[in-house]
């Protein structure tokens, strides 16, 4: 599964995209926790970021479909 990072998340993880292997039936919340463990610098922001699964924002309870493309969108404040 591919996770695309945007804005500040890209800086904190030091990557544009991350490849993740999760067991079938894993949820968005599982993915969030896994990313937090793998990238401790990202952990704080992750809790306050939106995750979109196949271009649709999803809450943590959603089961990730097979081959889902996930986007991690942290909030942005500049104007």
């Amino acid at each position, binding site marked *: 599964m591919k996770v695309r990072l*945007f*804005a*500040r998340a890209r*800086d*904190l993880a030091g990557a544009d995209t991350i490849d993740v292997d999760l067991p079938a039936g894993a949820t968005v919340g599982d993915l969030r926790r896994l990313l937090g463990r793998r990238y*401790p*610098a990202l952990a*704080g*922001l992750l809790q*306050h*970021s*939106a995750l*979109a699964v196949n*271009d*649709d*924002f999803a809450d943590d309870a959603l089961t990730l479909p097979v081959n889902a493309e996930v*986007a991690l*969108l*942290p*909030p*942005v*404040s*500049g*104007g």
Partner: protein
Amino acid sequence: MSSALPLNVDRVHLSSQEVARYSRHLIMPEVGLDGQKRLKAASILLIGAGGLGSPLGLYLAAAGIGRIGLVDFDVVDFSNLQRQILHGTADVGRPKLHSARDRIQAVNPEVQLDLYETKLTSANALDIIRPYDIVIDGTDNFPTRYLTNDACVLLKKPNVYGSIFRFDGQASVFHPPQGPCYRCLYPEPPPPGEVPSCAEGGVLGILPGLVGCIQATEAVKLILGNGEPLIGRLLLYDALRMSFREFKVRRNPKCPVCGDKPSITALIDYEQFCGVRGQESHAPAPADQQGETTVEELKRRLDRKEAVFILDVRNPPEYAICQIPGSTLLPLPELPQRFGELDRNREIVVHCKSGMRSAKAVQFLREQGFTKLKNLKGGILAWAEQIDPSMPKY
């Protein structure tokens, strides 16, 4: 989907000069005379006359919006000019609203401008927003974004949202119950300091031009009742990849503001909600003051040739602009991996640009057992102001 605003155009008249001015609109079937009258009958409130507010103010005035309100209390600074095209070099030091007024009136004197030279607060937001048909969020901080969102939800005003960071832009139209609000997307703000502002993280000067133009387009479409508004969609612009993507956002029935059973029915304290006030009261606690030093004290000690270790925790592009003589660069994001390089028996004076990041570094190093630490109050900006006026400020 069209969601035309209830505008009364019966008494709106276009003069010959206005017909000439708006002729390229008038000959388009999507605007036409009726549409141009709608634009003239409409009122828009711009919150912020900065990066996003600049293209918004200029294009909305040029397009013939009848009444534009501007909220900003800032003064033009040299560092604004790279992107805030409402303001010119000669305007540095003037209130932004004054230069905005001059520039917008030069573009289109037909527009009625209402100037609110104040900070938008929970006390004044509802009164300022109420008279307008559309609100455009061009603010540069989380407390004002949440305040704008909540006030718009309470007053049922469409909130045309835009936000920028370095090369990344976001835009959407929040208008419950037709679609979600900002809180449906981001229920709670990130902890203070977690998401840098433009002043801390930088921004490509052109980026707000593009995002502001997207917001202006959405506002005009809402007034015309034409096309598909960005309601329920978050548009993401990535200038580095030069790509646009959109994501579906649904209204959250459990949203505390726009949900089915809202728990927030009046404006709250947004500085507190975003942790800004809490942070102020925590950072310079009295117990911490002994852990601070001033630029004057540091200069005296350097002049006495004392062997002070100066740790600069800014990022490399900032270090390239200016440095305190003899300082060592170790950027804050790398500190958790590299603090072992530091000598914990030696006194360390930590500094950044203005003192926030270095305070975090001091706290982190204390947790690792370092004891001889001092945070440089005011950072390198204070050094440039009080010790070395020839040093460039950024």
